[in-house]
């Protein structure tokens, strides 16, 4: 099945974009989770709702939101295009953006819960020992939340791998460029049902595999 070039491309694009999306989700999601767990600012619950909303939004709507923001005539996108000639929609970057948009909330929720449960007393102790807030974060808070961060990355990666609605809306389904495995499955259903079934099984195995690997950390508390 992997002898077909478009299928092989779709698998590679899926793996490449989902790994990048999971790492970006970690890079932005962990500090965000920290802020949500520890800040006393007002409007925090509103911010949390905004951060988590991609989880409940229909992915297609998410894709349209991304187009509205980053499309060539979008709110942010038209500056990118006018000033630097950068056009994001229907590129590999757009695939990653859509995946981060949909997957990051899973990581944020997992990691925020861990930060909330972690012992604030240890962080206070570190402060009294001369550690700056950023040192406390990296040497005390983050190590305590490490299992949740790993689980969050795995969830975000699995969600990115399966991402369809937001990606196809914002990035399109161009074989060899933006077409990921779920998009290939969708297009193959009417052409080659058997092959689409095999690709579906590949996706199922990967997703279940991730959940199985995470079961100790994720299912049985942290």
């Amino acid at each position: 099945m992997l002898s077909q070039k478009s299928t092989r491309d779709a698998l590679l694009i899926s793996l490449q974009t989902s790994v990048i999306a999971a790492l970006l989700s970690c890079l932005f999601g962990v500090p965000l989770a920290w802020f949500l767990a520890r800040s006393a600012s007002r409007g925090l619950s509103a911010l949390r709702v905004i951060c988590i909303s991609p989880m409940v939004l229909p992915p297609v709507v998410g894709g349209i939101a991304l187009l509205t923001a980053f499309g060539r005539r979008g709110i942010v996108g038209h500056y990118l295009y006018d000033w630097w000639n950068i056009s994001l929609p229907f590129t590999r970057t757009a695939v990653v953006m859509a995946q981060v948009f949909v997957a990051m909330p899973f990581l944020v929720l997992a990691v925020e819960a861990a930060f909330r449960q972690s012992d604030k007393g240890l962080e206070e102790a570190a402060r009294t020992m001369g550690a700056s807030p950023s040192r406390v974060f990296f040497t005390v808070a983050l190590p305590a939340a490490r299992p949740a961060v790993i689980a969050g990355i795995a969830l975000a990666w699995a969600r990115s791998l399966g991402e369809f609605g937001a990606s196809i809306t914002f990035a399109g389904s161009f074989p060899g460029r933006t077409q990921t495995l779920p998009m290939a499955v969708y297009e193959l259903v009417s052409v080659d049902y058997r092959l689409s079934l095999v690709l579906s099984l590949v996706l199922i195995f990967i997703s279940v595999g991730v959940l199985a690997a995470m079961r100790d950390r994720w299912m049985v508390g942290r």
Partner: protein
Amino acid sequence: MSISLHGVIGRGNFERDLNFAVADGEVLAITGPNGSGKSTIIHTIAGLISLRSGQLQSDNITWDEPAAKTWITPEQRTCAVVFQDLRLFPHINVIANVAYGLRAHGVPKDEAMTRSSAMLSHVGLATFEKRRTLDLSGGERQRVALARALVVEPRVLLLDEPLSAVDAASRSALRELLPEVLASFAGSTILVTHDLVDVEALATATFGL
């Protein structure tokens, strides 16, 4: 005076007017029943809670004065705390716990390890460097917490119920160790406790809440 507090401390609905100063080499014991604000005093001096009003000074530097909007962050205060619940870091070993404060103060790793090692010997834990803090007994954990506080050479040492988390056997050993350790400590010590035996063994002055 290496530490002086004149003002109102508080946490939640609790509030209390306080007025005391401690000189170098002195051990001030603050006694009182549970709920009388003993831990609040420690946390206020350490900078984990701010004063409601008044002034907290150390070596003529104001750490906290709400009226003047003066506030020195916990990490900048030259004090060290032995918390009632110890708060040892579970994810690093004994010597890394002791060296943590030195590293946070920018002491190079080799020097931090040498000094921490010497301090662990000083409190009788020379062979415990690589152990995990979770595997230690109550008395051993208490010694690690003490070593961790003293190694940064603070000007003010704050002890919150230092013998409350310890079994009877370790307690008598610590009652011998603590006066020794405090005698060689150059700064001032504030000890809060509800145990009058501790006061007798350790304090040079007392103050009841």
